[in-house]
């Protein structure tokens, strides 16, 4: 029994002609880390919003098919109940700061205050979440005085602290440096290993290859292909359809044409490429 099930989901935003999602079928197991890739406008964000309940509860519009998480159907639930199970962090960190709080610590506690967590438990959970994402030293800063990357970590922490069963992330590392990105992927991987189910829309294919369990490639609202990271990320279909791919894959593909790459798979990460070129 899958933890997340999308059946034939087609969705159109209000006042638009073309659907943003078309006949999407998707199953995610509990504790699985699924990455969603696709060119801009492919429907990654819409898929995230659909999982998090904002499509259609918040955006309205026309939806058909069914979205089920943890045995509950999205259209039979209300948004305020749905968000207790499904957490969402998205791209622009600045707009995810509540604006109601004066320090990072208070900002992270905001969600727990809203759902009525007792004070002592709240403090313990905020501390724990902050050490998980490594932002303890920011606790007393104003959330507005932080850099974009730091704000993104605060946004992620603010959702992690609520302990959702399904974590939906829409490009959570877009403003981070490589070190920050790696740490966030590490945290997400760890959460998945502890049983949290994760769906993450992301462009950074090298990190996806290293950390995700499965990759879904979206194009024009449809699932183009899905499978194990290396299988999907090295497929010829991706460059043909305008997806960004790893430079190591491109190099190895060229090398293969000239007979310099002898392996029967293509690399995504630097390590794989180095290994492959070394042992020819």
């Amino acid at each position, binding site marked *: 029994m899958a933890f997340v099930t999308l059946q034939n989901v087609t969705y159109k935003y209000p006042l638009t002609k073309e659907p943003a999602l078309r006949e999407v079928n998707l199953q995610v197991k509990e504790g699985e880390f699924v990455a969603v890739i696709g060119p801009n406008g492919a429907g990654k964000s819409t898929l995230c919003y659909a999982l998090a309940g904002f499509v259609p509860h918040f955006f309205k519009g026309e939806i058909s098919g069914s979205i089920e998480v943890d045995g509950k159907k999205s259209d039979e639930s209300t948004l305020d109940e749905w968000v*207790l199970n499904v957490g969402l962090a998205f791209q622009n960190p600045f707009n995810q700061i509540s*604006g109601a709080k004066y320090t990072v610590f208070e900002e992270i506690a905001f969600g727990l205050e809203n759902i009525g967590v007792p004070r002592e438990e709240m403090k313990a959970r905020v501390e724990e979440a902050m050490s998980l994402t490594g932002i303890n030293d920011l606790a007393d800063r104003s959330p507005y005085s932080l850099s974009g990357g730091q704000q993104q970590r605060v946004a992620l922490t603010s959702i992690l602290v609520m302990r959702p069963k399904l974590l939906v992330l829409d490009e959570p590392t877009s403003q981070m440096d490589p070190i920050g990105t790696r740490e966030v992927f590490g945290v997400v991987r760890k959460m998945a290993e502890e049983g949290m189910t994760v769906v993450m829309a992301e462009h950074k294919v090298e990190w996806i290859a290293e950390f995700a369990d499965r990759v879904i490639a979206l194009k024009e609202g449809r699932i183009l292909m899905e499978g194990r990271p290396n299988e999907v990320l090295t497929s010829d279909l991706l460059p043909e359809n305008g997806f960004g791919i790893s430079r190591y894959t491109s190099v190895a593909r060229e090398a293969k044409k000239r007979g310099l790459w002898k392996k029967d798979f293509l690399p995504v990460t630097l390590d794989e490429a180095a290994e492959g070129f070394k042992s020819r």
Partner: protein
Amino acid sequence: MHERLSFHVKRDSFLHRLNPLTKLVMILALILVTFTFPWYWTPHLLVLVAVLPLSLLGKVFREFSFAALRLILPAAGFLFLMQAFFQPVGSDVVFKFYFLDITSESLTFAFKNAMRVFAMVSAFTLFLLTTHPSELMSDLTRRGLPGQFAYVIISTLQILPQMQAKAQTIIAAQRSRGLDTESTFFKRAGSLVPLVGPLVFGSLVEVEERAIAIEARGFTSKHAKTSLHEIPDSSFDKALRWILLALIIVSIASNLWLS
């Protein structure tokens, strides 16, 4: 980085430790007594025996006198002059300036009113100096103020400086593309359009995203909310509130009976 919009000075004092509602009632009592108690020297006396000692008790005397001298006194002084000149009462002319007379009656009247305004604004300043806005709002929310209302107040205080900063960025961006912001009045007025557009539409998009973000964090949850900070509300606070309330009633009643 732009400052947040708040006067609050973080100190540890008697006044800071009082419950926000107690302070609010205290300020309300000060203002109402100033305006309703039917004795001429009430506002003057209250400033001396209540507002000034309170500013010392709250350890914000320096900040308070700064605000009082720089902002409140000029405003009250202006009010005094206006009322002294234009209040058409009394016949005992003290000073004449073309067609404007100042009588001793209009002087006393103006002095009283200026003092009333001074007392009111300075009491409120004291409140703002010693009360953190989010503390006030979480206390009021706990007492039944709708959470949405509190959110609007607090987030406005924080987001306005951010919008200001954004407006500066847009101005800089448009100027670097040749927008005229320094010549004649009409040209400058015209150049407001390309500034306001991005600011307003950008803010609307932001509002939608922010709504999603706080909704994702259970903002509309039907659970009873809790609060991270414990807000003190001692039996002293409660007693003080009742005393102040009694004071307000006495003051209003004496106004009704004696006038």
